[in-house]
């Protein structure tokens, strides 16, 4: 530091301290990532970088400033809205309307049965068909989905991981039957299984065979589908599950390294497939941090790929899709979400994303309506057409703050990556459950901050709207969708060549026993009209189905509330309860059906335990009948159903029935948490649900209500 600038800074610091009546050091705040944010940055903060190269240019090593030289000045990012619901017919209509209104690429959201490799007629998926995405059972559905959408012109992204083989096969066959050769198909298949085991929970097979499938797809597409991205290495879901930005960044890149190794182990040269690896990040509310994250991701990936021996420049370049954060959006005062999403979108753009999804304001209520989807899309159209942000590439380059933040994030992420590599890579770490636990810990901390009010969420824990607006919701009649799908499956099963299908499925099963690329026999089976469920089962015969063993964090929530009055009040209520009843209040927290959103359930479970409840944690994917057995055998006082994928109107009544079947006099209190549109409250109460805790519920308040309800119920006996 030269004396002159030192003097300048000292003067500034004095003024700052005088204005704020604070020491400079007290004005430094810590982010969730553990990064210290200073009230001012100077050119001294641009020194001693080991990752960021200060004066690099866009499209040049280390690609911090963007994958291309021209970026949006030549072509703006692709507006790619993630959507899908009900039947292929209805989703197809929705897509076509969106494309007419300015959307540029498609992104398919499949329903949970499809994700998990079950056909719509499977008993296990009763409540889930068409609810949280579109139901695809056969290639016929896939063809309907893209009816009048020319697949040689439209780039299609598909979020599919568990049932990736039959679904990609159906897409390829649908293209072929539309007259489009597979080499002309463009788009992306998510095909990122590691983050499924961590946070997204739509895995089917155990980690090892799942990794083999990933590599098969990379191999196949690298040879036969040159315009198709073989994988979308996703951090998005991690942040949505509660990861801070460093965790998101580190785990995503570490996953990427694992996929590179898996592909190379098939004998592929790194440059044969690396240019077709793509990424996916979430963009949350921490405006500058998110920008820095995208810049850091590109910087680190270039370094990583160079170390892998990549020679082709395109192998070094990280291209990414982004989605604004759904979890930052609230059920309360929902129009605020339009504003949040706009800022997040701007962040993604300033970070240099290649495509973007912006969420609808009804995110925390249900799937978007036509109207809310239009506003979400327009958020991007306005950015592209009215704000001028497309005119300059990486406009924040040279900002002392942003460059420093980029470096800080890179450093922190690199430390974690090095640690994971030291442990033997991400597959091992995932199998041991470490990343999942770290993310849950981070999620629990965030919840504690919101519940204690130390983090403000407008409309939720501060500045509440006294007159909550009521909004329209998209309603999906899953029974109708299911009936429709079952009819279609039946018709196909009647008209297809059953012997040929059986033979193709047997072939597939055999192929799974050796090193054959599974996509090839899969395409054969799908062509013959084997269903997604049949194909998945053919592989399950060899691989088995994976059940996750869930670990739980403990003490993280409680620690945040040491000495807190409200918290202690619940604790003492529980002690009193124990004195009166001879045991602590015991609550079974469950997830039913194929809904894999476990963030809320896990947080509630650990927080309740910290307050003194005995909490039974059910596994994912339980049937209502299994939950009833579990609840009764453990003689719990209450069941807390956490439901986010809209299966509640089917699953909750089934649970009530299940309880009465085992114990007609069952007095177990049932309450429900998660995504419940207001319109459904009445229905649930009529089905004897005692309380409903929607998004944004304060957990300490919820706990108090639960214990009061349990006590009331016991005193009635």
């Amino acid at each position: 530091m030269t004396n002159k600038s030192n003097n300048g800074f000292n003067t500034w610091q004095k003024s700052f301290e005088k204005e704020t009546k604070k020491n400079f050091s007290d004005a430094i705040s810590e982010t969730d990532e553990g990064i210290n944010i200073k009230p001012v940055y100077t050119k001294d903060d641009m020194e001693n970088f080991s990752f960021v190269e200060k004066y690099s240019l866009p499209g040049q090593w280390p690609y911090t400033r963007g994958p291309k030289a021209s970026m949006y000045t030549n072509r703006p990012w692709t507006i790619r809205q993630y959507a899908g619901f009900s039947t292929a017919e209805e989703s197809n209509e929705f897509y076509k309307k969106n494309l007419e209104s300015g959307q540029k690429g498609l992104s398919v959201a499949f329903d949970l049965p499809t994700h998990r490799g079950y056909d719509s007629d499977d008993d296990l998926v009763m409540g889930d068909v068409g609810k949280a995405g579109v139901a695809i059972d056969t290639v016929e559905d896939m063809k309907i989905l893209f009816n009048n959408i020319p697949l040689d012109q439209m780039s299609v992204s598909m979020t599919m991981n568990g049932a990736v083989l039959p679904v990609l096969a159906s897409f390829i066959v649908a293209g072929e039957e539309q007259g489009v050769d597979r080499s002309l198909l463009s788009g992306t298949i998510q095909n990122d299984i590691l983050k499924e085991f961590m946070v997204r929970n739509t895995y089917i097979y155990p980690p090892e065979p799942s990794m083999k499938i990933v590599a098969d797809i990379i191999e196949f597409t690298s040879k036969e589908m040159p315009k198709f991205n073989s994988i979308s290495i996703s951090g998005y879901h991690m942040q949505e599950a509660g990861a801070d930005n460093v965790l998101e960044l580190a785990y995503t890149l570490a996953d990427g390294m694992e996929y590179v190794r898996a592909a190379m182990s098939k004998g592929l040269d790194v440059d044969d497939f690396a240019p077709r690896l793509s990424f996916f990040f979430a963009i949350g509310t921490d405006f500058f941090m998110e920008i820095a994250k995208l810049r850091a991701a590109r910087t680190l990936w270039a370094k990583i790929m160079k170390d892998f021996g990549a020679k082709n420049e395109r192998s070094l370049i990280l291209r990414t899709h982004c989605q604004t954060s759904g979890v930052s959006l609230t059920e309360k005062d929902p129009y605020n979400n339009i504003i949040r999403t706009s800022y997040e979108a701007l962040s993604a753009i300033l970070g240099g994303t290649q495509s973007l999804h912006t969420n609808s304001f009804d995110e925390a209520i249900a799937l978007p309506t036509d109207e809310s989807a239009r506003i979400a899309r327009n958020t991007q159209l306005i950015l592209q057409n009215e704000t001028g942000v497309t005119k300059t590439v990486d406009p924040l380059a040279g900002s002392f703050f942003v460059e420093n933040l980029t470096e800080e994030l890179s450093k922190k992420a690199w430390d974690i990556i090095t640690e994971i590599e030291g442990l033997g890579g991400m597959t091992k770490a995932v199998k041991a459950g470490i990343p999942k636990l770290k993310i849950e810990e981070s999620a629990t901390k965030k919840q504690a901050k919101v519940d204690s009010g130390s983090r403000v969420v407008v409309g939720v824990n501060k500045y509440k709207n006294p007159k909550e607006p009521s909004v329209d919701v998209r309603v999906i009649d899953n029974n109708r969708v299911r009936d429709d799908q079952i009819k279609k499956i039946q018709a196909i099963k009647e008209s297809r060549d059953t012997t040929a299908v059986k033979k193709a499925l047997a072939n597939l099963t055999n192929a799974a026993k050796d090193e054959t690329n599974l996509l090839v026999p899969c395409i054969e089976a799908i062509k013959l009209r084997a269903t997604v469920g049949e194909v998945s089962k053919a592989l399950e015969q060899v691989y088995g189905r994976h059940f996750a063993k869930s670990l739980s964090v403990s003490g993280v929530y409680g620690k945040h509330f040491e000495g807190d009055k409200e918290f202690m009040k619940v604790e003492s209520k529980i002690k009193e309860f124990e004195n009166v009843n001879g045991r602590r209040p015991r609550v079974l927290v469950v997830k039913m059906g194929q809904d894999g959103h476990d963030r809320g359930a896990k947080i509630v479970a650990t927080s309740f335990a910290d307050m003194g409840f005995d909490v039974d944690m059910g596994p994912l994917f339980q049937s209502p009948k299994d939950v009833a057995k579990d609840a009764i055998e453990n003689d719990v006082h209450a069941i807390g159903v956490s439901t986010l994928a809209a299966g509640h109107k089917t699953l909750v009544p089934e649970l009530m029935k299940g309880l009465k079947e085992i114990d007609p006099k069952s007095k177990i209190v049932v309450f429900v948490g998660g995504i419940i549109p207001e319109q459904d409250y009445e229905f649930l109460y009529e089905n004897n649900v005692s309380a409903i805790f929607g998004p944004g519920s304060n957990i300490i308040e919820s706990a108090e209500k639960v214990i009061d309800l349990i006590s009331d119920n016991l005193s009635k006996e």
Partner: protein
Amino acid sequence: MELVDKIIKGERAAIAKAITLVESSKDSDQQISRQLISELIKKPGKSIRVGFSGPPGVGKSTFIESFGSYLVSQNYKLGILAIDPSSQITGGSILGDKTRMVEISKNPNTFIRSTPSRGTLGGISMGTREASIILDAAGYDFIFIETVGVGQSEIVASNLVDIFTLIVGPGSGDELQGIKKGITEYADIFIVNKNDGELKMEASKTAADYKSALSYYKKLDELEKQVLLVSAIEQTGMEDVIKTINQIIDQNKLKGIFDERRADQLEYWIEEEVKNIIASDITNRLTSKGNIPKYSEKVMKNEMSMYEAVETITKDTLKQ
């Protein structure tokens, strides 16, 4: 008692309520519980009680899921008491065992109950013995008790079962020195889990280490202790486990060891109950008389020695 009939009929809710009663810390519940257990003991079933203990994370729950699935597929009825170690001292517990017993928990021929250990000695919770009596009366063929093996727990747990099994992981052979003689007296079967994939070699080696160590400690008149290799994840070795269990049970019955053990366990139980009653009686007296604070103050003030205080208090407390 109405509850007794319902338990004997195998009604799930009744069994569950009864276990709550025996686990309850409330006096009135304990009284009913005693009545209940006295009744049930008169109507014993035919259960074989098997204990599974072992260090955290060795795969006990996964093994029970695997082995249990095998047993229910052979039409056995299976009761499981999982003592969950995840309790904390201040807060409540998260009972996550069932996330590892997904398949068997669905089966109508199983009854699975998790109990927080609450940091009690040996990880055995209050009421585990009584709970197994309830399941026995309810007609379960096997009762499994899962406990974490730390310190004393093997000894306490082995006192509740007919066969006691120690589950260990590959590589644990190195710790054999630490296991010492004691455990061989308590465990009837040693299971080396995780005999799969990369761990196979290590698992075989561990099994061999155990075998040689065990033969070293073997008493003359004793049966050879069995060391079995299994993989809970790949479900291998399960037939061996049931075969070995049946063998040991048959032999023990033949030699009278089976009944002898149960008699010993009854003695131990009675002794424990008596001690408990006396201990709580003494505690009550101590608190009501307030001698401890009174005399420690005297010790503090150097008015008497610490041992004089102890003697005085003891005499005063035991005085009728």
